[in-house]
């Protein structure tokens, strides 16, 4: 073995504990107690003891650099902190591992003098950072614990919070349950890490120490019989393809996939707020969704490229599966072909995730990247339409609440990368089948959702949830369709209850104002006032009414009456200006 190989062999596995014969109680010898220049006031004996020989093989290194040295070089550490924050900004990696049971550690720290517990002998070895996925520590929270165990818990909570904050703040994708992944990782570490072991490295060990054997029955890595679909010879080479065809009345939940084919492009352009889509032939749209081994970077591979398109009335699903890493080219070639034939692509969060990643894969395989097509990203549409009601826009959520579809035994997103990587090493094929099914659902869901959105957006349906209607109203308004916006707003306002009613009336009134329909505006604002549930809403109504009466109706008395309620909203200075101005006008009108 080469020298490098020998060094590799000695390279510590994180978490490997190596107990070293710690110095036992110093063997007493005939050595005289070294005289000191001064007799220490306390601990004299200990000091003298330390001066004596300490057991075989040990050398007392009595001259460690005094602690008066400055903190680690200013520029370096400052820039390292900067660098760390840059690195964190540049990436969306995990932050700190969540510590597990540190009570044992705290106990170990509060030990009686002289005793060092077994687990504390664990060696913190040369292997520092080899543990993957462990990002640098973010700045400490500076909490002051009341006790060691309390401190540990506080730290755990604080770090988890910081981690959540960081993820929520930085996440662009919005999908791929990272929190669940965090939970999974922490769980994995808790399971795998030896009890009472020293934090970081033990956690690192859990990262490294994945089971040597893949979970489930071993599989010959070249045996793909358990994977749905089959190897097809295409113009671009062999591709493992899973195919399925759906009739137009196939329903995802209660929404059929068929209507997506005939969705009018002008409508799409409106609710997508993208004028470029106005002339697109939606019947030739290509639906795209990928499953990948990670979230970003040149080492992340989309191992499943799911494609959907209409042929005639039917919806064709083709999922391209990567049997072995490095065999992407045929898949990319096939994708290129379909892209060339498509009028646009439809994705869910594809603008931030799938499309950039696919472009990277072309580069990585030395293929010219395809031209960026027209792109309908349903995530943004769904968010605008349904966030008000649902709080978020994750596809699974939308599926359930808008399409009425509940998946059974779905493979959670955060498990997907590991299942595939396991598979590549000989893991079971059945879990991969689960991923393929998950992906199929995603694509069909997109078609169903598109059809559903178009249908609901076409005109105001009285049976729609008023919150949705109000969202549609806002979208229509932004798209410049004032008439439809007004209709949505009116129906929303009539049907809304609780706090939403006032919101709807306010919006309805605002739209009326914009088209100079003062009567409708006034009615709407009065209704909003009546339905207002908080100061914000009533304040907004009062303010709008004050303006309306002042500028349009020239009814200064009523204007003033409403203006008196807006002080807290506008701030004293602006409010005073308004009052003064209205009073001036009133005086002028009266005096002549």
């Amino acid at each position: 073995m080469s020298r490098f190989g020998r060094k590799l062999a000695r390279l510590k596995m994180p978490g490997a504990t190596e107990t070293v014969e710690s110095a036992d109680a110093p063997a007493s010898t005939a050595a005289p107690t070294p005289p000191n220049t001064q007799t220490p006031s306390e601990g004299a004996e200990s000091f003298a003891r330390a001066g004596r020989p300490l057991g075989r093989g040990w050398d007392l290194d009595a001259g460690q650099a005094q602690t008066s040295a400055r903190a680690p070089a200013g520029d370096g550490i400052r820039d390292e902190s900067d660098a760390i924050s840059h690195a964190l900004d540049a990436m969306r990696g995990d932050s700190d591992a969540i510590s597990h049971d540190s009570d044992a550690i705290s106990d170990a720290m509060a030990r009686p003098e002289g005793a060092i517990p077994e687990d504390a002998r664990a060696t913190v070895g040369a292997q520092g950072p080899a543990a993957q996925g462990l990002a640098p520590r973010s700045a400490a929270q500076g909490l002051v614990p009341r006790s060691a165990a309390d401190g540990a818990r506080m730290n755990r909570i604080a770090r988890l919070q910081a981690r959540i904050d960081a993820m929520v703040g930085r996440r662009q994708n919005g999908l791929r349950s990272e929190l669940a992944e965090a939970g999974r990782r922490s769980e994995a570490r808790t399971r795998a890490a030896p009890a009472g072991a020293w934090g970081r490295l033990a956690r690192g060990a859990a990262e490294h120490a994945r089971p040597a054997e893949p979970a489930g029955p071993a599989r010959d890595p070249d045996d793909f019989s358990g994977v749905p679909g089959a190897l097809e010879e295409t113009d671009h080479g062999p591709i493992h393809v899973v195919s399925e065809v759906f009739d137009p009345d196939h329903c995802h939940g209660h929404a059929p996939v068929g209507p997506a084919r005939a969705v009018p492009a002008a409508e799409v352009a409106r609710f997508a707020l993208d004028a470029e889509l106005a002339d697109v032939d939606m019947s030739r749209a290509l639906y795209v969704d990928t499953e990948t081994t990670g979230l970003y970077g040149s080492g992340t591979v989309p191992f499943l490229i799911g494609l959907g398109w209409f042929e005639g009335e039917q919806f064709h699903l083709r999922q391209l599966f990567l049997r072995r890493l490095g065999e992407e080219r045929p898949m990319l070639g096939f994708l290129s072909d379909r892209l060339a034939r498509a009028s646009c692509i439809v994705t869910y969060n594809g603008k931030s995730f799938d499309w950039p990643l696919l472009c990277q894969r072309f580069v990585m395989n030395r293929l010219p990247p395809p031209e960026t097509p027209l792109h309908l990203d349903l995530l943004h549409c769904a968010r605008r339409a349904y966030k008000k009601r649902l709080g978020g826009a994750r596809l699974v959520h939308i599926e359930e609440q808008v399409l009425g579809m509940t998946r059974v035994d779905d493979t959670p997103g955060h498990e997907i990368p590991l299942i595939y990587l396991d598979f590549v090493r000989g893991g079971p094929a059945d879990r991969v089948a689960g991923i393929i099914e998950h992906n199929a659902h995603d694509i069909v869901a997109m078609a169903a959702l598109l059809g559903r959105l178009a249908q609901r957006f076409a005109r105001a349906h009285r049976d729609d949830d008023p919150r949705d209607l109000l969202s549609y109203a806002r979208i229509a308004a932004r798209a410049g369709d004032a008439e439809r916006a007004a209709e949505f707003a009116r129906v929303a306002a009539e049907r809304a209850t609780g706090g939403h009613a006032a919101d709807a009336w306010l919006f309805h009134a605002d739209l009326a104002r914009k088209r100079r329909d003062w009567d409708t505006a006034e009615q709407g604002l009065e209704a909003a006032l009546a339905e207002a549930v908080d100061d914000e809403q009533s304040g907004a109504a009062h303010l709008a009414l004050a303006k309306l009466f002042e500028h349009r109706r020239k009814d200064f008395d009523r204007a003033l009456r409403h203006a008196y309620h807006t002080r807290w909203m506008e701030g004293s200075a602006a409010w005073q200006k308004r009052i003064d101005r209205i009073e001036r006008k009133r005086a002028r009108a009266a005096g002549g």
Partner: protein
Amino acid sequence: MSTRTPAFGGDRRIPWRSPRGLDAALAQWREDGVWQQVALDRTLPPVPAREVPLPAALSPQTRTALAGRGIERLYSHQARALELAAQGHDFVVATPTASGKSLCYNLPVLEAFARSADARALYLFPTKALSRDQEDSLRALLQEAGLEHGAITYDGDTPGDARRAARQRTGVLLTNPDMLHSGILPNHAGWARMFGNLEYVVIDELHMYRGVFGSHLANVLRRLRRIARFHGSDPKFILCSATIGNPAEHAERIVGRPVKAITESGAPAGERRLIVYNPPVVNSELGIRASYLKEAVRLTLDLVRADVPTLVFGQSRNGVEVMLKYLRDRLAGDKRIDPSSIVAYRGGYLPNQRRDTERALRAGAIRCVVATNALELGIDIGSLDAVVCAGYPGTIAGAWQRFGRAGRRQGASLSVLVTSSAPLDQFVAGSPEHLLDGGVEHARVDPDNVEILIDHLKCAAFELPFEEDDPLGDVPPETVQEGLGFLEQHRVVHANHSTKGTTWHWASDAYPASAVSLRSIGWDNFVIIDLDTDKNIAEMDFRSTHTMLHEQAIYQHDADQYQVERLDYENHKAYVRKVAPDYYTTAETRTKVTVIEDDEAAHVSHPPPPPHSKVWTMAAGLGEVSVVSKVVGYKKIKYHTHENVGYGEVHLPVMQKHTTAFWLTIPEDFVTSLSVPRPAVIDALRGLLNAMHTVAAAGLMIDPRDLGRTLGDKDDPDGPASSGGGGGPGFDPTLFLYDEIPGGVGLAPRLFDEREPLLVRTRRLLDNCGCNGGCPACIGPTVGVEAGVRPRPLVIGILDRLGIR
């Protein structure tokens, strides 16, 4: 014909400036008796400029830009840079400060841009501040040349749209190694346009990339070259370094292939006078001299009063504050001088602040600047007539970097080094000609440190799959394969075997770059939290935490002291509280070193001077060792008197690592041949080791804490212990100097190569120390000293017998 640069802004018209200012101050010193303490007074003659006309082949755009700055001729080294660049060489420019180094890289880049609209360049700076600084002047230069290529800094502060522009369009990308490592390289597919057209990679401040940081950078560059090749480019490297002893060798290690060196500067220099001033001894018992800070201030005052603009360097922020205060206080009474014309220069300066200071200096409104590190001054604050260094910066290279701030292109200048009582300083005071011909220190790195290499191999595998026979920069394919095998074992990469060969793919859901810090091995920093303010005040690396942040330790931060009340080991936090003790603490570490593999061996043998006759042979060695250490207690040492005032126990786990070491074995027979009790000899050897450690750290340009030392027995890991232990057969005392960084970063090999000069310099250090029997500074705190035996003379006696003089 003179050249002007914007920083100097042309001829100066300041009424009070005249050569007599400097002479007046010097004359005053002769009168005052300052000269008694002067250890060196050397005058370096003026150096005329060596200029050449602009090369004929220079593009019109570059000519325009140069003409705009009034540059009609180039210095010889700038012209040479253009020449080497045109020939397609990698090269390093190692000329002194303020010699116009930036044109050495900007001109070749301008030329490349003039040739091709798509050409790109990547500039690396070690800090954000430096890259931001360069950005503005570079943009101006590009505009003056009429080129469309822009320049953008890409770091954590860059906003989103600028990032997009950086990827798509910009000509020059300025960034730092950390961002390159974790932000750009792992996402290189999004940077295809840049990597496909990359012509130059410029690395400034090369001397800063040593030790761990440098070893990491070398690997980042290996990855960079690999990725550039993938996208179809083969960029050339242009490196700039301050004066170090081995610019070409260092550059070659960093870049991984042969590098040409430009070391002769064509820039002119006025006459320079170098004075080394050693404050008088005031306490011979302990070897304490008059405060070097106060002496430095005194000399500065003389200069300021003589209207000589002066730059004063302190070793720490605290030192700077103190000197500033003294200066202002003393000048408070002087009506001629406005105390606000004495300013300090600290870290965290802002660019506009710096420009204000520059302007004020030119206008004569500032008479004195007090600063810490030479680097803090960034690129150009201009030069001053005099530089006073309060305390020796630790290396010759560092000293000359500071001295280089003195002197205009014409006119005389003065550099004064005021030495402190620290042993290195006294070493210089004792042999001051070392500053001129001692040999500038070497920068050391070890890019093949196993830990570091494996980490970057992981990153590289993430970036691009490996095929058989793929090297990684200068790492040969066989080694790469071994590494990949290791990674495959740990389920990080997966090998695909096919008829076309084997490829290794990244096969994990983690992102390796986020777990690798370029400035350490291990993310295991501890955070230091002030209990009174709940704020983090600093971070400390894992190893130092054991010795400096154990509970009850006194931790020094800038000028303040804190006591460590609690060390939360598991969570890597140290809780401290401000205190004002009259003692400091030093940790006691038990260290055991075991040799795992010998790489080299040699003998050190010299005939001793009379009356000794026997020639002794020491065995020197270099190789890999296992170091096990444990901090077991600490001592409380009183300030100034160095009395021992207490002791405490420390309970921390054992640390173990593999690293490289240099060792020197003294034959047991030698020890017994001395007519001094064995324990005393062993302690003397320990003192010798401490002195060697000091000299070694200086010679390697490293923080002494990065080099470990211990006295042990090479062959028998269970050999008898040190003081008081009974001897046994086969016990040969061995002095170990080992790299504290696991795996080593090139320190031990250098020590092995330079073992002879090391011993000679150690002897010189001991000879020059002003103390009587040995002080904490030269041979270290003495333990186990028997009454009547003074260690320092004993150490010197030992060296005599071994023939080291």
